[in-house]
């Protein structure tokens, strides 16, 4: 009897098709044949492998009986779960992780306040996702190329972007590596292998496939990693990029920060699948779901994903379950569409930073005094950085026209001339902190 494989195959005839294999020899591929071992057992030799027939008219269920389980190492109280399968983190790395998580938290608080005071125009916080940011960065090497969405400044922080550099960018002054051209939080630093943030959702996912392709061509011992949210998985670019990565066998980690909300759209209105992880298999990609608020779990998952991606030259999908404890951005007030107690619960009982702190304190590596010192030092440094950034002048007018092309073309030079003439005639209408 043909075993029921539950694929709901129609027993009707399938039109035979020749297909040409892309890799390896260019011989004409398999032709369809129906083998008859005995009159009751028939198998379809189809491109991609043998397919069993079934006489049951059965449809695959739209959702599995159980949701895909979630990997975690630390429990809610910061204790290692005894059955946990994980790699021990060295003390220096563990402490840098915590210190960077605290720095990120402080950075978020202060820059958010600065925006509210009108000192910067816009800001996006990472509150609740500190573990994702820092722990994933810690598991990578500096040669791995990061293609971010916009809620991952922690990766830059881990790699060495200074608080002054963050401030310079957000104030758009002349020391900004982006030359003041982008909104705040659209950081980019090619020295640290961190691609400049582009506001558009999910456009960075195919970029990451291209980056991984380049790394594969150059046979580098590095991978690409791209981050996106639950909302980003609805974009066409997400699906096509995952498909491409699987077909082309490139070393890329697709990291989905499933934080429950896409501005005001909850995940129940974003998709009906079991999150993002379930989709990996649809594209032929190895995937894992991990507790995004557990720094050690994120560290381990990314570490393992990176090894597999590079050694086997394949894409890996990591879905981290977490919560966007802050607003979408400074232009949003999330209390309008979600209950206050939900936000409070995730900010306190499920906070990734305090959970991780319990673990390092449990190891005897941390105490209250060190905590206080760290927080006050970071705060002081940040306030100084902001003051300095605020006072620094903006990029010169000429930078409005450079970098559109590799050299400034004649039409832009002409437009610059026109602009300068206008400024000369009406200096009062021109901002005083932009050098001409």
């Amino acid at each position, binding site marked *: 009897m043909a075993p029921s494989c539950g694929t709901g195959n129609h027993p009707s005839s399938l039109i035979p098709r020749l297909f040409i294999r892309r890799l390896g020899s260019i011989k004409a591929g398999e032709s369809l044949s129906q083998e008859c071992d005995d009159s009751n057992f028939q198998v379809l030799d189809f491109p991609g492998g043998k397919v069993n027939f079934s006489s049951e008219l059965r449809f695959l269920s739209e959702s599995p009986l159980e949701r895909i389980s979630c990997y975690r190492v630390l429990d809610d109280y910061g204790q290692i779960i005894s059955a946990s399968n994980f790699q021990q983190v060295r003390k220096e790395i563990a402490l840098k992780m915590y210190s960077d998580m605290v720095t990120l938290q402080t950075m978020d608080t202060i820059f958010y306040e600065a925006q509210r005071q009108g000192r910067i125009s816009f800001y996006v916080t990472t509150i609740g996702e500190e573990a994702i940011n820092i722990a994933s960065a810690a598991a990578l090497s500096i040669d791995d190329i990061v293609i971010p969405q916009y809620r991952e400044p922690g990766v830059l922080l881990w790699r060495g972007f200074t608080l002054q550099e963050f401030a310079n960018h957000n104030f758009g002054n002349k020391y900004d*590596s982006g030359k003041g051209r982008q909104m705040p939080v659209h950081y980019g630093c090619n020295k640290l292998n961190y691609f*400049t943030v582009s506001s558009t959702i999910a456009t960075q996912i*195919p970029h*990451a496939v291209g980056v991984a392709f*380049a790394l594969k061509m150059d046979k580098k011992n590095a991978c690409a990693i791209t981050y996106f949210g639950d909302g980003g998985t609805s974009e066409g670019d997400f699906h096509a990029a995952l498909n491409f990565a699987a077909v*082309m066998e490139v070393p890329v980690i697709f990291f989905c920060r499933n934080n429950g909300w896409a501005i005001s759209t909850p995940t129940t209105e974003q998709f009906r699948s079991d999150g993002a992880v379930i989709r990996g298999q649809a594209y032929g990609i190895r995937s894992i779901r991990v507790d995004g608020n557990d720094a050690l779990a994120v560290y381990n998952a990314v570490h393992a994903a990176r090894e597999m991606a590079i050694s086997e030259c394949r894409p890996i999908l990591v879905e981290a379950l977490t919560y966007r404890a802050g607003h979408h951005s400074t232009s949003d007030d999330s209390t309008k569409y979600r209950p206050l107690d939900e936000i409070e619960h995730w900010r306190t009982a499920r906070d990734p930073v305090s959970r991780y702190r319990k673990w390092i304190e449990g190891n005897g590596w941390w105490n209250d005094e060190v905590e206080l010192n760290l927080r006050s030092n970071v705060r002081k440094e940040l306030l100084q950085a902001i003051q300095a950034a605020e006072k620094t002048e903006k990029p010169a007018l000429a930078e409005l026209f450079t970098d559109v092309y590799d050299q400034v073309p004649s039409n832009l030079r002409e437009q610059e001339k026109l602009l300068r003439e206008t400024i000369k005639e009406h200096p009062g209408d021109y901002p005083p902190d932009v050098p001409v």
Partner: protein
Amino acid sequence: MAGALQAATAALLSSTPLKTYGSDRLRLGSAPRSLAGRKGSFLVVRSDAGFGSGSNARTRPGKLIPNAVATKPDASASSTSSKPGHELLLFEALREGLDEEMARDPRVCVMGEDVGHYGGSYKVTKGLADKYGDLRVLDTPIAENSFTGMGIGAAMTGLRPVVEGMNMGFLLLAFNQISNNCGMLHYTSGGQFTIPIVIRGPGGVGRQLGAEHSQRLESYFQSIPGLQMVACSTPYNAKGLMKAAIRSENPVVLFEHVLLYNLKERIPDEEYICCLEEAEMVRPGEHVTILTYSRMRYHVMQAAKTLVNKGYDPEVIDIRSLKPFDLYTIGNSIKKTHRVLIVEECMRTGGIGASLQSAIIKEFWDYLDAPIKCLSSQDVPTPYAGTLEDCTVVQPAEIVKAVEDLCK
């Protein structure tokens, strides 16, 4: 029609010197216009002793010859040392340019649908996968936004991808990546990341390909800052522009035309490049400046024959560079003739012609003796019926009438 195109090409070669300006280092905006007096002089290449021998010449990268010109059959005695060149079709010229650049620079790669072993829908990449491998000539699944995005990511990481759209119309799906990332990321990253990508494919009205496959994407892309656009029209400039586009540090969109792929021409064996920002003087004249590009060049040249018989002397310029316009060449022509006719395949509204008119009015208003005339396609989707399709494309008879009206 193909016969007419061949005839037009032959007429081109015999009556006009191909004036092309090649330089080793291409700069957008820099214009070392040392080529004095763009009159009918004919520069002939003298090949160096150690450079390029026989059949190896076209594949061996060596010193670039600026002003390379295919020699005429009745070339003067001083050109005895130059090679006769070789004949090929436009799609082969594109392939040759691509092949040479891939051999020269291992970072150049191709990605697109069916470009690998299938060789591309118009055979531009035929044989390249066998030569350079599956990784450098990459077949992609059907998702234009995605493989264009992939090309952008690869470019930012140091590769030099050539992305092929099976038809320019399909690149509408890639508009997000082309506009938001390709054109912008060099600027928004503060110059940290460059995107030396080439996006190419066939467009324009073909032979009853239907509305969706007869689009003129140059109208839609022309506004995107950070992009450069060129349109090839002959095997000579197709190869030259392909090579120049690949070497450019800026993202370049290379527009090919579905009906021009089988044009035959004799091109030099020596390596050469066409300048991306330059227009091509097809036929110098005195009475009227006719600005055109891509397939319309041939309709214009056909009309030019009739016009010459009627006693007119049109100056025909193939603008080639759609973004930015070569206002230097165009301006010099207008200063001489004072009358302008633009012949394009774009729609009346918002096409290249509309922008060109606007630029000319702004720069050369004082030199015009008559309003600018612009012949374009109507603002309708291209119909499938052959007779109707012909009505939407500017025909030589209309061009003749327009010149007559202009010169009254």
